[in-house]
Every structure is written in C-alpha cells, then in structure tokens.
C-alpha cells in the first residue's frame, strides 16, 4: 500500500494509505480524546469527542472515521477544539441523568475521566431529566438508560465480537435508545448468549453486573482485548 505524508500539530509523519487520523496520531504518540471508539470494532463517529481541524475544510472532522490523505494538515488540540470538546461533554451530561454520587461506575467511568481532563467543573446547559428506565430483567446484567451515552460500543461488540446481534439502536435523536432483539426486556431476549461483552465494553455506568453498588462496577476490558488480539494478530496471549 502507498504511504501518505501528512502533518499533525506541526510534525510531519507518514503512514499507510487507508489508516484513520486517530490511528496515525496514536501511533505517533499524539493523544486525541475518544469515547465511542473501541479497539477491535469498527468506528461509527458517534460521540464527536475526537474532532480535529483539517486545513482547508471548514467543518471539524472526527479523527476515528476520517482517513488520512496526502498533504493533510491537522490540528488535534487547538483552543477551538478544546472549546467544542468541553461543550460536547457538557451536552452528554445534560442529555440524560448522570448522578455520579449514586452511580455504579463512579470513579471508573470514561465520561467522568474525560470531563475532569477537560476541566468540566459544572455543566452550563440545563439538564433535560428525560424519563428513562432501568432494565434489570436479565439474570446477570442490568442496563440503566439514564447513563447511556449512545456510543453503540455494546451494539458493535454484541454483533461483531460475540456475533449474537442482541443489541441495537432504536429511534432517532433524543429518543434514540439501546434495545434488545425486537425491543423486549433483556431477560426475555432469545439471542443474548449471556457472554457479558457489552458490559465489558460500556464506558459508563449504563451496563453493569447485577449486585454491584455505588462505585463497584469496573468494566474489565482484558477479555475483549484478548479476543481482539487473538483475532487480529493470531496471538493467544493471556
């Protein structure tokens, strides 16, 4: 494959054609914040946290779904980007009801961690307080829609790592939500294999092991990483 040369934050780098801006940046030690991106499954550009500036293009583009091109000039951490990232984080908090003090993932949450690293000490937008339910019909797992950021990680791992296809996104805009099978309670799903990969993938407290209480839910990624590594590199390393 042909190599492409581009500039990221003033540094010239070259990488293989077909790579995404995010991959190339990370390969060169340049950190771009992400939330919906998960190693091992395809990217969907859902969260908009990884937005970057590309010279000559007025729109900001998501690093995770934008392919590199010859002569591309990128900025990954301008003041404008920082402003938009903080805004995006605040909107995520305002959209559903994240009450960190009583959350199973308090202290182990990717949304929280990003909020802190972006200096979010309060949310400037009015909270929406939508009425979402908690589904605890499954034998082993629970889903709190109030804390879902619609990153669709759970959907992607369910379809493309486990191959069960239980989880899906239903609806559009503010009424979009994660469903099981034909929008039935999780506990009544015929296709769910109870593998728990969705729970492992979730960045927030939306998916949890039943019985976990405040701050107890740590999303263990080791098993997912093991499978992805085995699949992509044919290495079975525990």
């Amino acid at each position, binding site marked *: 494959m042909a190599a492409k040369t581009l500039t990221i934050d003033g540094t010239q780098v070259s990488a293989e054609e077909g790579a995404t801006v995010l991959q190339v940046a990370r390969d060169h030690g340049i950190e771009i914040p992400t939330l919906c991106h998960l190693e091992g499954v395809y990217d969907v550009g859902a969260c908009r946290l990884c937005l970057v500036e590309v010279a000559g293009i007025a729109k900001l583009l998501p690093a995770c779904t934008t392919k590199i091109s010859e002569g591309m000039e990128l900025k990954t951490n301008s003041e404008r980007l920082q402003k938009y990232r903080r805004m995006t984080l605040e909107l995520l908090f305002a959209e559903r009801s994240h*009450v960190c*003090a009583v959350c199973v993932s308090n202290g182990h949450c990717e949304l929280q961690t990003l909020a802190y690293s972006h200096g979010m000490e*309060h949310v400037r937008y009015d909270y929406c307080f939508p009425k979402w339910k908690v589904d605890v019909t499954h034998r082993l797992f629970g889903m709190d829609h109030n804390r879902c950021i619609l990153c669709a990680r759970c959907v992607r791992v369910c379809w493309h790592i486990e191959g069960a296809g239980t989880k899906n996104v239903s609806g559009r805009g503010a009424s979009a939500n994660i469903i099981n099978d034909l929008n039935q309670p999780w506990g009544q799903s015929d296709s769910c294999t109870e593998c728990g990969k969705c729970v492992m993938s979730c960045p927030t407290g939306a998916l949890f092991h039943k019985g976990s209480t405040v701050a107890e839910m740590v999303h263990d990624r080791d098993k997912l990483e093991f499978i992805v590594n085995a699949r992509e590199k044919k290495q079975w390393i525990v």
Partner: protein
Amino acid sequence: MDRLKVATVWLGGCAGCHMSFLDLDEFLIELAGKIELVYSPVVDVKEYPENVDVCLIEGAVCNEDNLEILHKIRARTKVLVSFGDCAVTGNVPALRNKLGLHNVENILQRAYVENAQNNPAIPKADGIVPRLLERVTPVHEAVSVEYFLPGCPPPADRIKALMTQVLGGKEPKLEGANLKFG
C-alpha cells in the same frame, strides 16, 4: 487587613458538605484567624448580612425559601461558590424532576401518605413549610455563580485547596484529584 467576610448556606442538601467543612480540622483554626464567619448553619445569625465577600452554597434549589434566600445572597455577596454536587448539578434532590411537572404532588403523596404509619397527611402550613418548586435546579440555573466545588461531599482537602486559593485572592482552579463528581 480586614478579615474576609465568609458565609455558608444549606439549601436542598444532606448537610454532608457542611460536615466535610467541619472536617477541615486544624485548618479551621487557621481559617478562623483569616475570615469572619458572618452567616452559617453553625452560626446563630438569623438574617443574611450585607457586604459578604464569599458564600459557599450547599444544596440544590428545591423550594421557595431556597430561591428567596439565594436572590438575597446574590445581591449581598461578591463571590458565590457552588459547594458540592447538589449545588453544582442538582444531584440526588433533582432526581424528582424525572417524574415530570407533577412530581411535587407525587413525591409528597408517596412520602407523607403512602409511606406514613401514623396520621397520613401532606404537610401544609403557609409561611412555615415552604412550597416545593416544580423543578429542582442547580444553583447556577437560578443565580450567577463564580466558582464550582464539586464532590459528594467534596473532601476536606478539596475545600481547603479552594479556600486557600480564594483567600490568596486567586481565581480558584481545581485540577487532578481535586476535580471530581460523586
């Protein structure tokens, strides 16, 4: 130099933030030399005074009393600090907003009628029991706020970090472990 006039108030919260304030231990003694505590749940002053320099506000805005005193505080204070998650985000007290606009009747019914063992009745005493607002809000949705001190409750070290910066005349900035919700 005149000592800084500091106030603390307790709106719709559990008093945990004030407990954490008391947890400042010996720093309280240092603080006592530098500030004058002009109004607080731990001070016996009935009326919020004029010309206050800094006010730490615990709790969300839940009822008409909260709103009234908040407007008074804003008018009489230079610097407002939202003190703890309830003040900063609405936190647990704001959960009733999810029940929609009639949540007030619903929660009072649940608490004072359905769960009552003796004398089930919704407390009503105009001028004594303040009416609940339809929507609980964080403090900055009701009045403008200068600084934010999140945490449920913010640990004493974090309060100390912020107070030290404010006393030093600096714009407070919470970073690292000092910026945390929950």
